[in-house]
């Protein structure tokens, strides 16, 4: 179980990125955090990943407090961030350097198959398309079998078709490995299609203003009535959060569409 307890994050320049954020994600659950740009979503993920430290409060994974990058927490960045001097297979094995060679090869091979990139194993990152590169990035994060996988707007730079297929991929991978998934996104459809639970975030300072339990079974039909209705629920929550907090902030959650 992943616990975020009363976390504040104030940057050295005085900007309040997060205020009193608490969150509880059960093992194997998929939670989506939605909100406009600059609302602190990425900051939250960086804290959970251990790349930054919270100013107040703490983050716990089961019994441990997370203060630095943790082997059981994987992170997929907004961009693939593959190492250009390593082949696809070497990139995927990058986080497995502490394993024996045989074990590493097996793990890499398995995720390569899961993401359908066996043929590209010895390619350079420059030879991949954007979607393929992001699949490699997901495979790299999953190869060490983390308990928690954090996804920071992982598909925002991709076209709609690629995005849809990668969402299916993530669900496949989740089915295979059952990690806890915490997904940050500004795409309401993505949240409605993937998540068990959606949290709505507002900026300045970043905080949760609504929580929606989707209660939808999987597999879901992307353009089916249930997902459509859920999208409207999320959009409604975003809208209400604006009317509740009309502090001269942007009027439409533009990035939420």
């Amino acid at each position, binding site marked *: 179980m992943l616990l975020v307890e009363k976390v504040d994050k104030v940057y050295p320049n005085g900007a309040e990125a997060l205020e009193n954020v608490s969150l509880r994600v059960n093992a194997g659950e998929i939670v989506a955090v939605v909100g406009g740009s600059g609302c602190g979503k990425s900051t939250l993920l960086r804290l959970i*990943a251990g*790349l930054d430290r919270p100013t107040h409060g703490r983050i716990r994974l089961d019994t441990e407090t997370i203060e*630095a*990058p943790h*082997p059981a927490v*994987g*992170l997929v*960045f907004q*961009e693939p*961030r593959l*190492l*250009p*001097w*390593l082949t696809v297979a070497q990139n995927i094995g*990058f*986080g497995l*350097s502490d394993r024996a060679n045989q074990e590493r090869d097996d793990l890499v091979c398995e995720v390569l198959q899961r993401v359908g990139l066996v043929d590209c194993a010895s390619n*350079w*990152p*420059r030879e991949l398309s954007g979607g393929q590169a992001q699949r490699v990035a997901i495979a790299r994060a999953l190869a*060490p079998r983390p308990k928690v996988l954090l996804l920071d707007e992982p598909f925002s730079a991709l076209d709609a078709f690629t995005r849809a297929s990668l969402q299916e991929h993530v669900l496949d991978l989740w089915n295979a490995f059952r990690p806890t998934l915490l997904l940050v996104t500004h795409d309401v459809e993505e949240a409605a299609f993937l998540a068990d639970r959606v949290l709505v975030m507002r900026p300045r300072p970043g905080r949760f203003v609504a929580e929606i339990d989707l209660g939808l079974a999987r597999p879901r039909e992307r353009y089916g009535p249930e997902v459509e209705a859920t999208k409207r629920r999320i959009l409604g929550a975003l809208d209400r959060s604006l009317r509740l907090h009309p502090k001269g902030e942007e009027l439409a959650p533009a990035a939420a569409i």
Partner: protein
Amino acid sequence: MVTMTAIETSHLAEEKSAVTTRSEAPSRRVSGRFLLGFVLPVLLALIWEAAVRFGFAQGRLMPPPSRIFATLYDLAITGELFRHIAVTTARVAAGFVVGVLAATLIGALAGASRLARDLVDPTLQGLRAVPSIAWVPLFILWFGIFEQSKIILIAVGCFFPVYLGMLGAILSVDRKVVEVGRIFRLSTFGLVFRILLPAILPTYVVSLRAGLGLGWMFVVAAEFMGASEGLGYLLVDGQQLGKPDQILAAILTFAVLGKLTDGLLAAASAPFLTWQDTFAPRN
């Protein structure tokens, strides 16, 4: 004749490579392109040779290629040429190694630590502004006119481009890539060897090549300050005894050696840089 063959060969190679598989293509293309590089010098040599042969030019101060090659041949069969080449190359090698080692260490230190950078960089940038030849009188006073002062001068010449390259490369490593290393909990050692070194390698190689070029430049200055052997000595000797063919023979040898060593350095680093996603067309 020679030029025609070169062009025909490269043309043929291109046609062939067009039908071969992708993996085979680059090497064939390279050999064709490689020959293209000879077209200009060979053409110029032929024109000059003809000009002297047919009496359009005298060729006393600018001897025709045939005389230069004859001089080279004479120097070669007595073994003198190779002695000079060996001496000069050894000086460049020694100076290059010393300069590069110092530059790499200090550059890495200045890149890694803010304190070291603030401490060392202003002084080095100041010293860099001094034309390195200006050190010659001082080095002779300090280290004498023998090997030591020569090697130190060459090392100083090689130092600055490599230092600048190293420092600049480290400072420009992408934070995002470093974060990937942090996420996977690399140690400082791992971060250096698995992220920083590969990331700076392309820039570093370029600075090594610049350093080596300066090494060849400074060896001449070093050998001007009193040497009894070496290619620089051939230059001075040729001037004092009025032998322009010997001067040109030495210059030609410098050109070949410089190009050769640069090519070796580039070829030695190429296998480590195949991953690069660069502007230069690969085919």
